[in-house]
C-alpha cells in the first residue's frame, strides 16, 4: 500500500527515498498528535472515542479515495458531495419504500457510479475541463435530488442497515473501518495489477503518449469518473448508516461541505493534482490526520470553530513542505 508513481525513475540521492515519502511525515505527525492529545485529554484514547473517531474516519477515507481516483487521471470531481448525497438519498428512499436492504445499497452505489459516468462522458465528449463540468453537474445533481426528495429527510431506514453503521468487532473497531481498509487493499490491487488501473495512471501522467501507445484514453477517463462516483456514493451511504437518516443537507448546500475533506486527504497523502500517481496509504493517513486533529481539538475544548483554520494551515504546510522537498532533491525524476 505505498504510493504508486507511473513516472518514477531510479535516482541517486543522499536521503533514502522512503524517508522523504509524505506517508512517513504524516505518520509521524499523527503519532505526535495522538501523544499530545492523549496526555492532555485522558479520554482521547478511550475505547468509546477511538470507536467514534474510527467511524468518522471510515467515511472520510472513502471520500478521499473518491477524489484520488479522478486526480489519478489528471481530472477532478467537484460533484463528490452532490453525488454522495444523491446515492445516499436514493438508498434511503428505496429502503423507506420497502426495497430489501442489499438491493437498495447496490442500486444506490450504481446510481453514484452512473452520475460519475455522466461526468466522465461529458468531459470526454465535449473536451471541457473536468473542473467546469463537475462544477455544473454538482449543481444539477443536487437540484434534481431536491426535486425528487422534496428536500425532506428520510428516517425510516432498514434496521440491519443502521445496525451496520453501529457494528463493531473486537469491541472498538467499527465494521465501517474494516470496509475502508478493505477498499484500500482493493484499490492497491486495482492500480498495481489490473490493466485498467495501470492505464489510468499512464493516462494521468501523459494523455498524449497514452493515446499514441494505444491506451483507450476515453474509456479510461470515463471509468475513472464512474469509479469516483461509486466511491462518493459509498461514502454517502456509509454516512447515512452512521447517522441513521438520509438527510439532503448532510454535505451542505450543493454538497460543497465535502470538497475540502475530499481534496485534503489525497493531497496531504501526496497525490499530484497533475495526475499520474495515487497515494493510497497516503490518502488513508491524510484522512486519519484530519480526523484525529478534529477529535483532539474537540476533546481539549478548543472547539469545532477553529478546526478549519488548523486544517487550512496544515494543508498549506504540507504542500509547501512537499514543494521544498522537490526543490531539495533535484535528481527526482518527475520535477515540479
Amino acid at each position, binding site marked *: 500500500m505505498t504510493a504508486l508513481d507511473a513516472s518514477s525513475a531510479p535516482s541517486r540521492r543522499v536521503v533514502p527515498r522512503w524517508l522523504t515519502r509524505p506517508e512517513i511525515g504524516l505518520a509521524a505527525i499523527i503519532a505526535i498528535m495522538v501523544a499530545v492529545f492523549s496526555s492532555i485529554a485522558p479520554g482521547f484514547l478511550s475505547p468509546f472515542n477511538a470507536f467514534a473517531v474510527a467511524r468518522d474516519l471510515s467515511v472520510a477515507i472513502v471520500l478521499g479515495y473518491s477524489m484520488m481516483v479522478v486526480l489519478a487521471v489528471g481530472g477532478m470531481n467537484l460533484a463528490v458531495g452532490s453525488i454522495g448525497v444523491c446515492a445516499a438519498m436514493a438508498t434511503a428512499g428505496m429502503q423507506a419504500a420497502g426495497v430489501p436492504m442489499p438491493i437498495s445499497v447496490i442500486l444506490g452505489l450504481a446510481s453514484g457510479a452512473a452520475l460519475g459516468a455522466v461526468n466522465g462522458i*461529458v468531459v470526454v465528449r*465535449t*473536451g*471541457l*475541463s473536468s*473542473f*467546469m*463540468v463537475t*462544477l*455544473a*453537474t*454538482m*449543481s*444539477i*445533481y*443536487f*437540484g*434534481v435530488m*431536491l*426535486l425528487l426528495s422534496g*428536500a425532506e429527510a428520510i428516517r425510516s431506514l432498514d434496521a440491519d442497515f443502521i445496525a451496520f453503521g453501529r457494528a463493531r468487532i473486537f469491541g472498538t473497531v467499527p465494521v465501517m473501518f474494516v470496509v475502508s481498509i478493505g477498499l484500500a487493499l482493493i484499490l492497491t490491487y486495482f492500480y498495481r495489477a489490473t490493466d485498467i488501473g495501470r492505464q489510468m495512471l499512464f493516462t494521468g501522467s501523459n494523455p498524449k503518449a497514452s493515446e499514441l501507445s494505444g491506451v483507450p484514453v476515453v474509456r479510461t477517463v470515463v471509468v475513472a469518473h464512474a469509479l469516483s462516483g461509486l466511491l462518493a456514493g459509498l461514502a454517502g451511504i456509509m454516512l447515512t448508516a452512521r447517522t441513521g437518516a438520509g438527510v439532503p443537507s448532510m454535505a451542505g*448546500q*450543493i454538497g*460543497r461541505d465535502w*470538497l*475540502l475533506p475530499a*481534496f*485534503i486527504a489525497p*493531497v496531504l497523502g501526496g497525490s499530484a*493534482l497533475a495526475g499520474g500517481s495515487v497515494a493510497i496509504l497516503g490518502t488513508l493517513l491524510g484522512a486519519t490526520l484530519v480526523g484525529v486533529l478534529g477529535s483532539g481539538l474537540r476533546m481539549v475544548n478548543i*472547539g*469545532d*470553530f*477553529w*478546526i*478549519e*483554520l*488548523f*486544517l*487550512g*494551515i496544515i*494543508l*498549506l504546510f504540507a*504542500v*509547501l513542505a512537499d*514543494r521544498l522537498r522537490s526543490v531539495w532533491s533535484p535528481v527526482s525524476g518527475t520535477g*515540479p
Partner: protein
Amino acid sequence: MIPEPLKRLALADNVGLATILVVAVAALAIANPAFLTSFNLYVVLTSLALWTCVALAQMTTLAIGQMTLSLGSLGGLVAVTVGGLCEVWGVPLPLAIAIALLVGLAGGLLNGVLIAASGVNSFIITLATFSAFHGLTLGLTRAIPFYNMPAALKALGNARYGAIPLMLGIVLVVAVAVHIVFTRTRLGRHMLAYGGNPQAALLSGLSTARIVIAAHGLSGLLAAIAAILTVGRLQVAQPTIGEDWLIVSFAAPIIGGASLTGGHVSVPGTLLALALLAIINDALVLLGVDPFWVQVVLGGLILAVVGANRLREGHRLGEAVAR
C-alpha cells in the same frame, strides 16, 4: 447562405449573450406583466449588484489562468470584520469599511504571495486558505452574526432611486474601473499576457511574481467590496456570507467569455451573464416554478454556454486555418 457580416456578428463576443438576454426579458415581460413593475426590477438589479463584485473577483484570477476557491470565505471574514469593528469596538463606519477592504486586500495578497513564492497550483493554495479564512471567521465569531449595523451601512445596501438600487451605481463604477484596468493599463495587459502564456511572459522580462500577487490582491479587494455590500443589504454581518459564492463566481465570468486557462476576460460579458442569471432566477420565482429548479437550471446553463463557446472557438479556429 448566411451573409458574411451577419456571420461575423454572430461570432462576435457578447452578441449571443445580449441577444439571449433581450429575448429573455421580452418573453418574461409578456409572460408575466409583474416583471416590469418597479419593485421587481429593483429586486433583479439588486441581485445583479450584489453578485457583480463576486464575479469580477473570480474573473481577475481567471485572467492570469488561476482561480480562487477562497473568495467566499474571505468574503465572510471581511463581513464579520465590518460587523465586529462597528458593533463591538464602535469604530466609525468609514474607518471600518477601510479596514475591511484592507483585510480583503491582505487576504488576496496572501494567496498571491503563497502561489508566486511556492509555485504550487492556485487551486490547492486557495483550498487551504479557503479553510483557514473560514476557520478564522467561525473561530472569531463562534458563528454568531453581528446584528447592530450602523444606519448608514444599511442605507447603503437598501437605498433606491425608483427601480435602481444605489449599490448598482457603486458596482458599475467598480466594473468600469476593472474594465479600464484590463483594457487600458499596463498591469492589465501584463496580467492577460501572463494568463495567455506564463512562459512567454517570463521570457519577455515581465515580473511574473508581481503580476500574480497583484491579480490576487485585486481579487481580494473586489471580494471585500462584495462582502461589505452584502452586509449592507442583509443589515446583518453574518459569518455565512460568501458560502454560496463559489458556483456563481465561476459561472458568470465563464459564461461571459472568460477562459479557465487564462488570457481572456470580459467585464461586459460577465455583467451580461450576471444579468441573465438574475433574470432566470426572477423568472423561476415569477412563474411559480419550484425553487429547487434554480440549481438545475444554473448547472445546465453553465454546461450549455461553455459547450457553445467551445464549439464557437472551434469554428473560429477552423476559419483561421482555412484562411
